[in-house]
């Protein structure tokens, strides 16, 4: 099967998963459709008011009908209007997404090299002290929920040492990178967990490869140290490495919600959490769909890069 066909199949698969997910998101959030009208109309409204509002919003149509309306609009880039403040969902997304991406990129810039280094060190010295120390440290760091990691960082660096601001007070309309100090703690908090998880994955792959017969054979042919790592181990680590990075990125999306909420950072995660708290259903739907799409795109890209870089997979297809 040619490469183009392979990629086309993967893309088709991703799109179909996205469609299924959109339906699931819609169904999950519209479990109690009537309440939307109730929320908007307010507690004091009469039944008649609510019914009229329901009709106006098109909430009296069937679930399937409403889903199709929403989905087709979304496919054209129209994600509707939020209940709270009548904000255009797509506009909010466009505004907040760059902030979240910035945070994610910063976190990965720190976490990826550190994870690779730690994972390699631990994996190549498997079973010995370095490995045990790194493994235990990463296990513990990965175990602690992100909000606690962030809370500790705030307590120590912000409240305690006063080095950085506690909350990301970004003036309305401005961008976080104009006030870089607000980026430090959130990115650090994200990086810690991402690093811990990724380092463990890298270590596992390195151990796998290092114990492969061809590595032992190379060792017994006299190849050692750096040459062994670079020429014999690394080429086989590409596949696992790509996987680690994509998993890491997908994980950052979840971590971002927590960190942005804790720091009041103006990103997509923060908006999502607010939307859930306010029962702003269209906002939740739109943002959730956007996050799923991002995850799928990242996974798809990782998949494709993996196939492109791996001789074995290319040969088989």
């Amino acid at each position: 099967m040619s490469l183009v066909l392979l990629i086309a199949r993967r893309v088709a698969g991703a799109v179909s998963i996205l469609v299924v997910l959109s339906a699931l998101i819609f169904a999950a959030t519209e479990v109690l459709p009537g309440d939307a009208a109730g929320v908007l109309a307010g507690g004091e409204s009469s039944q008649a008011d609510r019914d009229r509002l329901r009709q106006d919003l098109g909430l009296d149509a069937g679930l399937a009908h409403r889903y199709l309306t929403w989905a087709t609009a979304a496919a054209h880039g129209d994600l509707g209007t939020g209940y709270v403040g009548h904000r255009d969902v797509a506009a909010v997304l466009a505004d907040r997404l760059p902030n979240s991406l910035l945070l994610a990129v910063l976190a990965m810039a720190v976490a990826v090299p550190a994870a690779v280094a730690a994972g390699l060190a631990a994996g190549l010295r498997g079973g010995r002290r370095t490995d045990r120390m790194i493994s235990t440290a990463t296990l513990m760091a990965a175990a602690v929920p992100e909000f606690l990691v962030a809370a500790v960082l705030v307590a120590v660096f912000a409240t305690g040492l006063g080095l950085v601001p506690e909350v990301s007070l970004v003036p309305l309309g401005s961008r976080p990178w104009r006030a870089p100090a607000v980026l430090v703690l959130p990115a650090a908090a994200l990086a810690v967990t991402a690093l811990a998880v990724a380092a463990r994955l890298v270590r596992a792959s390195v151990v796998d490869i290092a114990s492969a017969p061809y590595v032992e054979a190379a060792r017994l042919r006299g190849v050692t140290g750096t040459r062994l790592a670079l020429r014999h181990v690394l080429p086989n680590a590409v596949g696992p490495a790509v996987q680690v990075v994509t998993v890491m990125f997908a994980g950052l999306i979840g971590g971002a919600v927590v960190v942005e909420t804790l720091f009041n950072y103006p990103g997509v995660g923060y908006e999502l959490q607010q939307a859930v708290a306010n029962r702003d259903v269209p906002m939740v739907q739109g943002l959730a769909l956007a996050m799923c799409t991002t995850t799928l795109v990242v996974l798809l890209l990782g998949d494709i890069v993996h196939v492109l870089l791996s001789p074995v997979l290319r040969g088989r297809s």
Partner: protein
Amino acid sequence: MSTEPVARVSDLTIGPVGGGAATVSGLNLTVPNRGVLALVGRSGSGKTTAALSLLGHLRPGLVRRGGAVHVAGQDAFTPGGAAALRAGTVAYLPQDAAATLNPSRRLGTQLAEAAGPRSVAELLDAVHLNVDRGFLRRYPHQVSGGQAQRVAFALALARDPRLLVLDEPTAGLDAVLVRGIRDLIAELLGRTATVLVSHDPELVSAVADEVVVLEAGRRVEAAPPRRVLSRTRGARRATVSPEIALSASGLTARHGRTTAVAGIDLSVISGECLALVGPSGSGKSTLARCLVGLHPYRGEVALRGTVVAGAAARRTAEQRRQVQLVAQHSVGALNPRETVDTALRRPLRHLRGLAEPAASAEIARLLDRVRLPSGYARRRPGRLSGGERQRVNLARALAVRPDVLLCDEVTSALDAHTGDAVLDLLAELRHDLGLTVVLITHDLATVARHADSVAVLDAGRVVEYGPVDAVLAAPDHVVTRALVGAAGT
């Protein structure tokens, strides 16, 4: 040419890091400068550990407790000595030679890197690989198993080592590949000293100049010569009209898209032993599983003349009782979480409806039949040796009083001595109980000793069939001839 031995192992003891029984204990070995020294013994006897020590290598978890290894004047267990040895004096090839090729690097790159003073073309020539330039650009998974094997050999021989260590080079391979390896080894004899670790007695007898036997890490005197068994024929030779215990007609089966068994016709006379042989992939195991009802097939299978349903689940209990399968790997054939007692009780309960106290009595009788002490009933498979597990396997098959036993490679996971014992037991049972046996094996020596007729399979078809003496003496088909040639010397 010096007559000094190329390697000397003195009083070597190696054991696990945390303490425990030594893997190799007080081993003394002298490897002559030329020729092949074979290290034989059961699995777990310390052969691989001893072989790796010639390169100063210890598998993770092992530590040298005493003794020394000197190869070509170097102490293998000093860092400098080990490095010097690995740089080209000693070469090592593990069991699956092809797995030593890095899957992400082209063959040409790997050969060039290892080549050193000689050229890649010379290397390939030495292992008789006539290839074009395109070959060098391929990756290991893009060439055949045999070719990958030879490339691995070429890599090992690249620096003209003085000592070559081969660890189980033929284990798990079919006859044709085995023959290729044997020829390769024979050719190398003049050029380098070789230590051959193997529990393949035919390979050892074919190439070894000296044989050292290891048992539980110690060197022992060579085992007594194998008994030449008298032919054990089924007592029930056809008197009036032979009854057909099991027959297949037009049997066809597939594995996914490939045809594994293609229109096979077969009859097994009651009381006889039919051997099914053929290279790996010829469909022997699939055929066995079809006969027992574990694999879907087209065509007919008949037991004592009555056609049975295709799937075991749709056959009657009586029909299921008549044919029993004794599986290949004794480890996987028994449930590790079940005691021997439970393993035997289940068939007694399900197919013979036995309850206490009849069941326990029968279990005791069965264990006795297979020459196992009655106390073994309480053991789990983990506490049994390979040969003992295979006996329990047999006992379980016999529990339902079958007419036909299908034995699929029952000794291929055992060393020769234990395997012989199991086959002897089988012959005895056949004689005493009047069983019909279908023996699937790749070992023609077994066929010669135990079978009455033999059917040779190739690519899912029977290509030759007849009495054992006739077929082995004058093989007709090319596959049969290849098998006979690979076996005998």
